[in-house]
């Protein structure tokens, strides 16, 4: 079993590229791999607690809740990207952590695979 580090970057919320990243993480964890999941830029929105379900939007937070339960999924949001957007510590959805960008590089250090999804 391997470790996949994913970086999820610009402009993704509201695009199906964000869904791709979450569904790929889900599929990898289901197969017994571990996934480190880093969000930066707009994708930090995914770490916001209190997201509501609408039929025009994917409810990715539900998949994330399930992923956190497995213990094989870690998710971290870029702290500065989040603060710039007005998301503070108390806005963080349960399970997430917030760090600087070096968290992502450190995760990549011993990852078997790294996938950075830009989205533009």
């Amino acid at each position, binding site marked *: 079993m391997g470790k996949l580090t994913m970086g999820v970057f*610009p402009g993704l919320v509201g695009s199906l590229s964000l869904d791709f990243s979450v569904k790929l993480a889900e599929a990898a964890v289901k197969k017994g791999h571990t996934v480190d999941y880093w969000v930066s830029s707009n994708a930090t929105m995914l770490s916001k607690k209190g997201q509501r379900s609408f039929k025009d939007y994917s409810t990715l937070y539900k998949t994330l809740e399930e992923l956190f339960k497995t213990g094989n999924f870690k998710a971290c949001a870029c702290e500065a990207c989040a603060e710039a957007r007005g998301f503070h510590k108390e806005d963080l959805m349960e399970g997430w952590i917030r760090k600087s960008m070096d968290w992502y590089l450190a995760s990549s250090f*011993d990852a078997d695979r790294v996938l950075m999804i830009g989205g533009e």
Partner: protein
Amino acid sequence: MATTKMGFIIKSLPYKTEASRLAMTHAIASQTVEIYLEDGDMVEPVVCFIGDGVLNCLKNQATAKHYDITSIEMHIRNSLLLDLKVLYCKEDLDRFGIKEDALIMDAEELGGETKAQIVPYSEIQKEMDSVNHLQFF
């Protein structure tokens, strides 16, 4: 004691999205990654600009004046100051008719000694072959 080599390949235009800015800031974060790693372990980035991405490398980006934000130029200079390896694709510069004197080639005014290098695409391909992980921005 191990080194993981990471290729940051920048193909996007500057400013419309944050792609090239984030590539630079994440590459620079390799300088502080040791706090998470064992002694002697490191992450070594190489930053390559190809395709439309070479347009990030033009001098005199006036974003501070007009939009009150740091420029990609400043991030490139910072990465040179920190001795990151920075490569520009010669074929793409030629295609756009961009000469070396229009490019950010060093961080001398910040006290840096490392220079950016203009190299043929084949050199960039070799870098991509040699790194452990690749990321395209």
